[in-house]
């Protein structure tokens, strides 16, 4: 059953009902937000930390949410910012190996929570070569089949720019397969 967002938002702002309303929100969005984050950062523990941050920020800032967009869009926006900030910090700290592709492959190979085959591993390697925001666009369109209009609200980018970004990302990934396989 679809959430009654107006009612939920009213309950979230009311101190007496805030916690139970937030529990509904958490139950509804834990999984989709987790996968949104996991596809970006790959590692389960990192995705777990970012998911916690996302919900804590939503909880503490709910009064600042104006209701101009859907709650889901707002949550995705927080999660996206968390992921991009994390990846930028990771790049800045040189945590990721300079040889990004090899690093990803090694990490996934050793990851007990990754059970893709070799092709899937290469696919993830190819995705890691995309700039973070372009990868985000690819993931949201390819895996989540999100509408460009919704993506535009989450990412603050025009629909035209998103279409172009997705098109370029698809070309890069397809070229990766053509060259590699």
């Amino acid at each position: 059953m679809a959430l009654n967002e107006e009612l939920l938002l009213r309950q979230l702002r009311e101190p007496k009902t805030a916690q139970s309303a937030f529990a509904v929100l958490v139950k509804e969005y834990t999984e989709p937000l987790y996968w949104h984050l996991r596809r970006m950062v790959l590692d389960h523990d990192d995705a777990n930390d970012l998911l916690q941050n996302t919900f804590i920020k939503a909880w503490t800032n709910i009064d600042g949410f104006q209701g101009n967009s859907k709650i889901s869009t707002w949550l995705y926006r927080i999660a996206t910012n968390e992921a991009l900030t994390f990846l930028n910090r990771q790049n800045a700290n040189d945590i990721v190996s300079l040889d990004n592709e090899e690093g990803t492959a090694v990490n996934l190979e050793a990851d007990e929570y990754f059970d893709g085959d070799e092709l899937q591993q290469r696919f993830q390697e190819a995705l890691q070569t995309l700039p973070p925001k372009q990868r985000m666009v690819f993931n949201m369109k390819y895996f989540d089949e999100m509408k460009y209009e919704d993506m535009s609200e989450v990412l603050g980018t025009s629909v035209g720019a998103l279409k172009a970004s997705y098109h370029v990302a698809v070309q890069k990934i397809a070229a990766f397969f053509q060259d590699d396989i």
Partner: protein
Amino acid sequence: MSDEELIKSKVGTGNPFKVPEGYFETFQQQLLSSLPERPSVDEEPARTRVWGRARRTWISVAAAFVGVVVLFATLHQMNVTKESATLATADEMAFTEDEMAEYMASSVFDDYTLYSYLTNEE
């Protein structure tokens, strides 16, 4: 075959990632049991609202007071100006005795002429 179709034919859209067993349920329980205190939405904004309302009231009263003062000042200024104008006119119109004597002396009518004129009139 488009590029997107090529990718889908190779790897599909399936999810190769896994999570620990019972992860989502555990996550939800832990998160909800450790939520931090939210900034009080009852007291702080309420105090702000009261102060805001009081401040608005004081600003209105002050504005009305200033308006009244300005109105009185303007009216008072208008009266002063009017009185000054009246006094100035009276001053301008008043003749001193010397001025009157001088005027009479320079007049074309001397006493005799004036007398004759009055006599003829009657």
